[in-house]
């Protein structure tokens, strides 16, 4: 497999900016381990399980130093996607994260997510993409309703 196709394959499983940075760091560690006698088996263990699995499969093949360098270069270049910042009221895991990433890619094209957690928003999400601030939070919805219909709400309370 050539490095371009390999990097493309790996990138499909990278959803967040944090993962991308971590991956590049791990690959750098992997490259360094090629020059030492230390065991390199568990280098990707701290990554998301699906991603770690793919990387372990990829790097168990006997990649030469040159090929590894080329792969890192490819990934460095490709992982320079615009970052979409999303604030959620929970920390998405597994399929949830995958779905969010798929939706973001559908809306904004190739991108990386930067997900932050804030339980004060109650529900929904704040999305910051290309300097645009979109507030789809439940907190904001409630605030708008309270501002628009203060009397009705006062009666209900």
């Amino acid at each position, binding site marked *: 497999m050539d490095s371009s196709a390999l990097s493309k394959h790996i990138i499909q499983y990278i959803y967040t900016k944090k993962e991308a940075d971590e991956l590049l760091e791990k690959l750098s560690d992997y490259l360094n381990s090629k020059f030492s006698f230390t065991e390199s088996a568990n280098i990707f263990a701290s990554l998301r399980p699906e991603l770690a699995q793919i990387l372990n499969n990829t790097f168990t093949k006997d990649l030469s130093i040159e090929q590894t360098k080329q792969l890192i270069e490819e990934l460095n270049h490709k992982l320079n996607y615009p970052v979409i910042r999303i604030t959620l009221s929970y920390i998405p895991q597994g399929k949830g994260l995958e779905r969010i990433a798929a939706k973001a890619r559908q809306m904004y094209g190739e991108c990386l997510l930067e997900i932050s957690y804030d339980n004060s928003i109650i529900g929904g999400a704040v999305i*910051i993409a*290309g*300097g*645009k*601030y*979109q*507030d789809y939070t439940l907190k*904001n919805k409630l605030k708008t309703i309270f501002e628009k219909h203060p009397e009705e709400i006062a009666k209900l309370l």
Partner: protein
Amino acid sequence: MNSFDNYLTETKEIGFVEESNHSIIYASGLPNVTVNEIVLFENGSTGLVLSMNNNFAEILTFTNAPIKNGMRVTRTRNKQEMPVGHEYLGLTVDPFGLPMDKLQGFRKPNMSRPIHVTPSGISNRKRIEKPFETGVTLVDFLIPIGKGQRELVIGDRKTGKTAFLHQTILSQAKMGTVCIYAAIGKKKMDIKKSEEFFKKMGISQNTVIIGSGSDDPAGVIYLTPYCAMTLGEYFLDEGHDVLVVLDDLLTHAKFYREIALIGKRFPGRNSYPADIFYTHARLLERGGNFIGKDGQEHSITCLPVVESVQGDIAGFIQTNLMSMTDGHIFFDVDLFARGQRPAINPFISVSRVGRQTQSHLRMTMTREVLSFLTLRQRLENFSHFGTEASPQVKNTLEVGNRILTFFTQNATEVMDVDLQTIIFGLIWQGIWEDINTLEKDLKKIRTAYKDNAGAKQVVKEIIDNSPDLNVLLITLRNRALDLFKELNIVIEGKVALFARPTAPALTPVPSPAPLPNGNTTIQTEVKN
């Protein structure tokens, strides 16, 4: 100002600080931000967008608070504005219109004006025709200024520039002019001193100090003169004559250079950015004599100050400012060292439009004095060779010294222009022969004249009946005793000159006016 979240919800645009370099911040995001727009940081600090490219907006901050990478920033859709209103009279405020001494109960005016505006065009302007009294005899005589004129005040540090500005403000504020003193990057102590001077002199109700301290951010110092001019324009539109003092523009230029260099602008001469001339010209162009909204003439007289180094007035900023003003008053360090106060060198100073505002009488007097002082200086230089001076030369030097004594003023003294005219007439007549007597009598006359309506009336009559210097001298011979009587003082000078009932003095004095003791030799030399 609304909170950060309110602006964010309203504008729906956000940016993130990517790089922070002293007072210049580079932020990503903010896709539709415009140049000169105010942006708000997450910590409540504000900034002004200077420029932008596809990736970053370059922001000038107005705070010393730390701005960290990753901090959020949002648009406000507001341009840089300064609150304006009569509430500011008597206050010392920063360029954002907030009192510097955290005045309790101060309510910020509701009205505000943009700081950067295009100056009024020629159709709104009128020829400068009214004289502007500084109260400083030397300036009013030799370098007259008109209302709406832009006169540069230039000189080395510690040569009395600020004292002169205080005197001018004192004189003008007493006449009802709104005086705005912009202290640009000054020490807080100096700003306080100015404030106390205005309070002590009882003119603070007509003055506003807009100050920025030397420890303030460069952006705040850069804005100070523009804010002063904005406030000046407000008072102009309200129907006032305004005096704006910009102290000083060399400091302003230095801070602008700092901003430009941090902002990676290409440095030009002396490392100043290429638009330094424009920066000052667009500021000073806002001064002038205008036709107000009420159809009346109102003026913004502007006195920018620039510091020279070791008497060198050919510096970059200094010459720039000379070329965009209507003249300059030069404070000479050598004259200061010799004890002359104010240490103004009238031979290097220029007023390009002031003469057109003078009456014929004042004009003839200015001409006589200037030519006489030129002659005196020549003779003084000649006398340095140790040659034995002839009686005529000695006489010229003595009269010159008397005139210089007349021009000498304390930093807190101002003299009415009419009184200046009369006293000069008396000196020219030769009633004082030694300087000590002159000094004593001058003091007495100034004090007695202050609130003396009768004396003011006599002075007014004498001046009204004197179209030129020769006629003034004749009128004085007839009316000087009336004036002394009104002043109710004993003059130590030779009052007997006027005591002769039928003196030949009634014959017209040949033009040019003879010097004291009837010697005309020197006059002939002047003409030649």
